[in-house]
C-alpha cells in the first residue's frame, strides 16, 4: 500500500463517452418494452441504462460497470410494490389509521435506503474492483429520522445541515476495494448550495412564470375554449417543469459540495482528494436548455439532455492519484460476499429514494 501513498498526487479527470443518439435507442426501447410488459422489463431497463452510463464513464482508460442481475432487481421491486399496495389498501380500508401508517413508513424508509445503497454499490465496479457500502443501521435512523425531524422543527432552516449529515453517512460508509471514502467536516458548503438553489429558483421561476402570464394575458383577448384550457395547462406544465429543474439543480449543487469535500484512502496511507470544477451557472444553463428541448420535442430530447449533463459533470470531475492505480487491492471482497450470504439475495431490494 505504501506505493499508493508515495509520490506527488496528480489529478486525473473522468471522461464520458455516451452519445445522445446512441442512448436514445436504449432509452426508447426501455420505455416501450416496459409498457408492453406492464413494468416487468423495468428491471432489465435499469441494468441497461446503468451499464450504458457507467460503461461510458472512464478513468485512466478503465471503465466503470454495473453488474446487477435484472431478476434480483425485479424480485426486490415485486416486494416493494407489494408493500406499497398493502400500504394503499390499508389507507383505503382504514383511513383513520393513516397517521400510524405514515409512522410505520418512516421507520421502514431508512432501512430501505441503506439496503438500496448496499445493493447498488455491491454491483458497481471500476476495473473489476467492486464498490461497497456497510453502515450501521442505528446510525441510519439517527441520520434520516433525527435530522429529518430537526429540519421540520426548524421549518426547513436546518435542511442543508441534515443533507450534509445524510451525505456524510453515505460517503463515510462507502468503499472502493480496500480504500475508504471520507467526507470532511463542515456543512458550510451545503448551506451555500441551498442558497444558490434558492437564488436559481428566483432567477428561473420568476421569469418563467412572468413570461407565461404575459403570454396568457395576450390569449385572454381571444378567449375561445381551447385557450382557456391552455391558460390552465401552461402554468401547470411550466410550474411542474421548473420544480424539476430546481430539484435537479439542488442535487447537482449538493453533489458538487459533496465531491469537493470527499477523499479516498487506504487505512495506512495519506488520503487522495476528489474534486470537480463544475460551474453552477453552466449547470443551470444546461438544465434549463434541456428542459426547453424536452418540452419542445415532446420528450424526445430527454436522453440527449441526460447525456449532455452527464458529459459536462463527469468530464469535470477529478480524483488525485499517487503512484500506480494497480496497487489498489480488492481486500474487502471476501467480507462483501460473506455479508451477501448472511442476508440472502431476497433482501436485495432496489428502491431509489
Amino acid at each position, binding site marked *: 500500500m505504501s506505493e499508493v501513498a508515495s509520490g506527488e498526487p496528480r489529478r486525473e479527470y473522468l471522461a464520458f463517452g455516451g452519445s445522445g443518439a*446512441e*442512448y436514445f*435507442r*436504449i432509452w*426508447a*426501447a426501455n*420505455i*416501450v*418494452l*416496459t*409498457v*408492453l410488459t*406492464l*413494468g416487468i422489463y*423495468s*428491471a*432489465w431497463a435499469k441494468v*441497461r441504462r446503468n*451499464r*450504458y452510463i457507467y*460503461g*461510458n464513464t472512464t478513468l485512466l*482508460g*478503465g*471503465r466503470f*460497470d454495473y453488474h446487477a442481475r435484472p431478476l434480483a432487481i425485479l424480485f426486490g*421491486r415485486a416486494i*416493494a*410494490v407489494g*408493500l*406499497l*399496495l398493502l400500504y*394503499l*389498501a390499508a389507507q*383505503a*380500508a*382504514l*383511513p*383513520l389509521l393513516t397517521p400510524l401508517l405514515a409512522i410505520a413508513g418512516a421507520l421502514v424508509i431508512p432501512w430501505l435506503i441503506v439496503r438500496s445503497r448496499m445493493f447498488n454499490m455491491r454491483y458497481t465496479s*471500476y*476495473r*473489476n*474492483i467492486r464498490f461497497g457500502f456497510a453502515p450501521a443501521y442505528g446510525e441510519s435512523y439517527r441520520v434520516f429520522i433525527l435530522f429529518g425531524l430537526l429540519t421540520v422543527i426548524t421549518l426547513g432552516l436546518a435542511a442543508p445541515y441534515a443533507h450534509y449529515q445524510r451525505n456524510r453517512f453515505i460517503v463515510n460508509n462507502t468503499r472502493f*476495494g480496500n480504500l475508504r471514502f471520507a467526507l470532511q467536516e463542515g456543512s458550510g458548503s451545503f448551506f451555500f448550495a441551498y442558497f444558490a438553489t434558492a437564488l436559481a429558483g428566483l432567477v428561473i421561476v420568476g421569469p418563467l412564470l412572468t413570461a407565461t402570464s404575459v403570454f396568457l394575458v395576450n390569449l385572454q383577448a381571444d378567449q375561445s375554449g381551447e385557450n*382557456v*384550457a391552455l391558460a*390552465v*395547462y401552461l402554468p401547470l406544465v411550466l410550474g*411542474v417543469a421548473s*420544480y*424539476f429543474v430546481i430539484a435537479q439543480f439542488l442535487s447537482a449543487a449538493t453533489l458538487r459540495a459533496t465531491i469537493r469535500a470527499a477523499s479516498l484512502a487506504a487505512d495506512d496511507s495519506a488520503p487522495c482528494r476528489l474534486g470537480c470544477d463544475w460551474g453552477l451557472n453552466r449547470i443551470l444553463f444546461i438544465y434549463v436548455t434541456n428542459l426547453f428541448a424536452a418540452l419542445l420535442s415532446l420528450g424526445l430530447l430527454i436522453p440527449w439532455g441526460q447525456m449532455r449533463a452527464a458529459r459536462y459533470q463527469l468530464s469535470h470531475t477529478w480524483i488525485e492519484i499517487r503512484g500506480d492505480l*494497480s*496497487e*489498489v*487491492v*480488492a481486500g474487502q*471482497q471476501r467480507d462483501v460476499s460473506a455479508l451477501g450470504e448472511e442476508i440472502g439475495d431476497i433482501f436485495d431490494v*432496489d*428502491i*431509489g429514494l
Partner: protein
Amino acid sequence: MTELRGFVYDGQTAARRAVTVKLSVPGYLTVQGFGSLARYPLDELDVSPRLGSQPAVVELPGGGRLEVADADAFYAALDSSPVRHQWQHAIESRRGLLVLITLLALAFGWLVYDRGIPAVARQAAMAVPAEMDQQIGVDGLALLDQQVFGPSTLSADARRQIEGAMLEVIAVVGDDQAYQLEFRAGNKVGPNAFALPAGIVIVTDELVALTEDTSELQAILAHEIGHVLNRHALRTLLQGSVVTGLLAVMSGDAAAAGGLAAAIPATLARAGYSRQFEYEADAVAKRYLLATDTPLTAFTAILARLEAQGGGDAVPGLLRTHPVTRDRLEQFLQ
C-alpha cells in the same frame, strides 16, 4: 475467429493486462497474455448482453473480467444463435422495429388504461367482502364528517319527505343493497351529493335548498344510487391503487410513484376514470326518469343550476373528475 485484442482485470487488483482472445477449439475460449494461457468452456462464461458500441464483457470463472473492444467480431464469433446475448441490442439498433413496437406499446397502453385496469378493479370490487365494504363506507363518512361536513339543519319533516323520495327511487332502480341516507351541511363542498361504499348516500343542505321540486332531488338520488349500484366508490379506490402500483413497477421506484412525476399521469388517469363513472351514474338517473315518466329536464335543470353555482368550467377537460356539463347534458339527452 481471428485473434482479438482485449484486457483482463483479475478482480484482485486494479491492474489491467493486455491479452489476445480466440475461439480456437469449438466451444472453448482461449485467453492468452501476461505469460499464461487459459482455456474456458463457453458454457461456464458469463457474457454480458451486447450494449451500444461498448466493448464485449465476459465474467471469467474465478472473478476475472475480460473486455474485448471489437464487440462486433466477438459476438459474431461467439454464438451461432446470437439471440442469447443480442436480442435487446437487436431491438435497439433497428429503427423500423423500434418504431413498430412503439406503436404497439401505445395501443397496448391505451387498452390497459381503457379496458384492463377497469376490468381488474371491477372483479376485485366484487370480491371485496361485505363487511369490509361496510367498514370502508363508515370510516369514509367519519373522515368526511371530521374534515368537511357539519350537522344538517334540515327539519325532521323535510328529512322524512326526502327519505320517502329516496325509497321511491330505490323501488325503481335499486338492488338488494341496503341504503343509508345521510343529511349534512356541505360547508366548503356546497350543494353536492356523495355515494360511499356500503350504500351510504349523503346529500347536503345546500343541495336540498337548490332543488326546486322533489323530482329534481330524486334525479340526483338516482344518480347517486347509480354510483352505489356500480360500486364506483370501491372501484375508484381500487383503480387508483392499480394505477399507482403499475406506475411504481414501471418507474421501478416505489418512492417516485408517490412523487410528482408519477402524480401527473396518475391524476389524469384517475380523472378519466371518474368522468366515466359520472356518465354511468347519469345513465341510471335517466333510467329512473324514463321509468317514472318524469321529464328529463328534472335532471338537466338541477345540473345546470349546479353548474351556475360552481361558477363554470374553470378546470379544463382532462383534469376534471366530472365531465364538462355541456358534454354531460349532450350524453344524457342522447
